[in-house]
């Protein structure tokens, strides 16, 4: 029998209460994450893409229970962890870690590298001082930083090296699941490639499972086994990476891929596929949230939120027009693989 996924979210919601203006009626809550179903199998990388404000970072934090969901269930190896108490959750959290985008902002500038990497070990009371020091050296080696880095401070390192420190810190407690939230987005191209390669090597050596959150579709394509696309708090499409990029079905995914500049001057885009921006879509909570920008929308799209339904094996799409077959796959999306 297939083991349960390492992590699974069912109907996950996070609504933020907006501040109330003086004498004004209470504003409706901001639905940052609005009914997300996702699972991540052990050892795979799920890429989570979408534009700013789509709720991808909030989803990552919800999966780690760094913030509490408004509704929904969270399963870890099939066990419901939605209502675990603080001390039990603390134990679980050793197995679930996060790497942030900004290696400048997420490392305390007054702590030395050995303190930074060793801090999770201290917090979770792992080993004695000598064992912890040995583990820190091991971790530095793992992320390809020199052993003499221990007595230096974050500002003495380049952006790429700082991100390696962040990775070592996240790996200190031997987690099985790591959320990488825009982990390479702040890095220059040449350094970005180094860190992506490192993350892939670590995944293989340590059997890690990744949720790789990024707005950069080319990076996500490179590192992910499967990809989920979010739009305004909902997952609109999930598929194996090759399938999603070769044959995207949801109109938003298609628009996103169409909007990317090509890899070569001969692949210039002649037209813009989608107009408007996220701000113009917030009014349509009842139905499909992309409908107001969607070139294929029909009145019925506004009636009810489209469910995420399978179109083909592991390929799921939340679009009623794809589901009923009235929106065929677009042919021009098989990118050349020369």
């Amino acid at each position: 029998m297939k083991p349960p996924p390492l992590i699974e979210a069912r109907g996950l919601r996070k609504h933020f209460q907006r501040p109330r203006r003086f004498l004004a009626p209470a504003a409706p809550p901001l639905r940052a994450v609005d009914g997300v179903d996702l699972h991540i199998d052990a050892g795979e990388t799920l890429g989570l893409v979408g534009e700013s404000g789509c709720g991808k970072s909030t989803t990552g934090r919800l999966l780690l229970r760094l913030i509490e969901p408004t509704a929904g269930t969270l399963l870890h190896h099939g066990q419901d962890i939605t209502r675990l108490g603080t001390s039990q959750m603390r134990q679980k959290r050793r197995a679930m870690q996060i790497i942030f985008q900004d290696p400048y902002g997420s490392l305390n500038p007054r702590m030395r590298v050995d303190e930074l990497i060793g801090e999770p070990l201290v917090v979770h009371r792992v080993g004695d001082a000598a064992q912890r020091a040995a583990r820190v050296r091991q971790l530095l080696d793992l992320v390809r930083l020199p052993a003499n880095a221990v007595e230096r401070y974050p500002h003495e390192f380049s952006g790429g090296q700082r991100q390696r420190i962040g990775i070592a810190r996240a790996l200190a407690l031997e987690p099985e699941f790591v959320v990488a939230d825009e982990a390479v987005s702040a890095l220059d191209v040449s350094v970005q490639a180094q860190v992506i390669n490192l993350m892939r090597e670590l995944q293989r050596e340590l059997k890690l499972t990744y949720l790789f959150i990024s707005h950069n579709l080319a990076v996500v394509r490179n590192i992910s086994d499967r990809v989920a696309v979010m739009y305004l708090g909902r997952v609109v499409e999930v598929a194996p990476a090759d399938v999603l990029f070769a044959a995207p079905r949801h109109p938003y995914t298609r628009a996103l891929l169409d909007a990317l500049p090509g890899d070569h001057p001969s692949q210039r885009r002649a037209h813009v596929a989608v107009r408007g921006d996220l701000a113009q879509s917030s009014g349509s909570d009842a139905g499909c949230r992309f409908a107001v920008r969607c070139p294929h929308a029909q009145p019925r799209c506004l009636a009810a939120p489209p469910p995420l339904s399978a179109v083909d094996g592991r390929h799921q799409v939340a679009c009623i027009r794809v589901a009923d077959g009235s929106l065929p796959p677009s042919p021009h999306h098989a990118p050349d693989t020369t």
Partner: protein
Amino acid sequence: MNAPAPEPLLRLRGLDTGIGPRGPLILYGVDLDLAPGEVLGVVGESGSGKSMLALSLMGLLPQPVAVRAGQAWWGERDLFTLRPAQRRALRGGEMAMIFQEPMSSLNPVMRVSQQLGEVLRWHRGLQGAPARAESLRLLERVEMPDPPRQLDSYPHELSGGMRQRVMIAMALAGRPRLLVADEPTTALDVTIQAQILELLRRIQRDEGMAVLLITHDLGVIAQMCDRVAVMYAGRIVEHGSALDLFDRPTHPYTQGLLASRPRLSAGAGWLTTIEGTVPAVGQLPPGCAFAPRCAQAGDDCAQVPALAPCGPGHWAACVAPQRPRPAQGPHR
């Protein structure tokens, strides 16, 4: 016979920009020609000096950074010897600039109409109803949704894409012949980036305006540029047409940059990397600054290589392509 090349709009020669009068240099002897109506991309990683190049041209360098040597010929005039008042008259008029983060370049307590009106009054002498009419026309030109309403908005009421449209409208208000765009879409989402790039390209064509596009993103270069200059550690290391650069990259740094970007058409797989990091300002290695990271480095890299032709309209600052090829011995 070929038609004579058009007189360049801008001829930059030997630009040295540095920190204070004696501090380390940021730009070393940069030469650049820009033809009227041309889109020239300047690509490089952080610390390459590409933004400082733009700010040197615009006369907007942050203290204590200053131009230390070189000429920037704008017609018959050298921009670097103009008096501040003459420079101000050009800036926002014939030469305009847009930035990565429009929020920090717009005044947060002024309505869009006031900010556009300021440029129109300063550079075109328009006021009152004609200024308002021209502001509306400009917002329509940059495809702003609902222009009359946005004219009375404050910057914080606009989305990032709409703010960048306001910036472009302000740049267009002075009828520029050169638009310097420093990472104009880096802070925007991809669907908005596509809209703004398309808008810039269309306006550039319609107005015959030259664009100097500064970016770290080779995708944006591929989408937009006629010619490209690649910068590394304060120098232009390769310079050619966009096609030359993508099809025949000659400098090892350009080759590395192209190879290390994840590509949509490539799928999964290990990425080629350039080992090491960009050297910091004032800590350049002697000789070719890229040599310590370069797989093709040799003893002949101890001197800083000059840009040398490696094809028609294509230059690279590297000795490797000029080395004699090793004799082809029999392989075992």
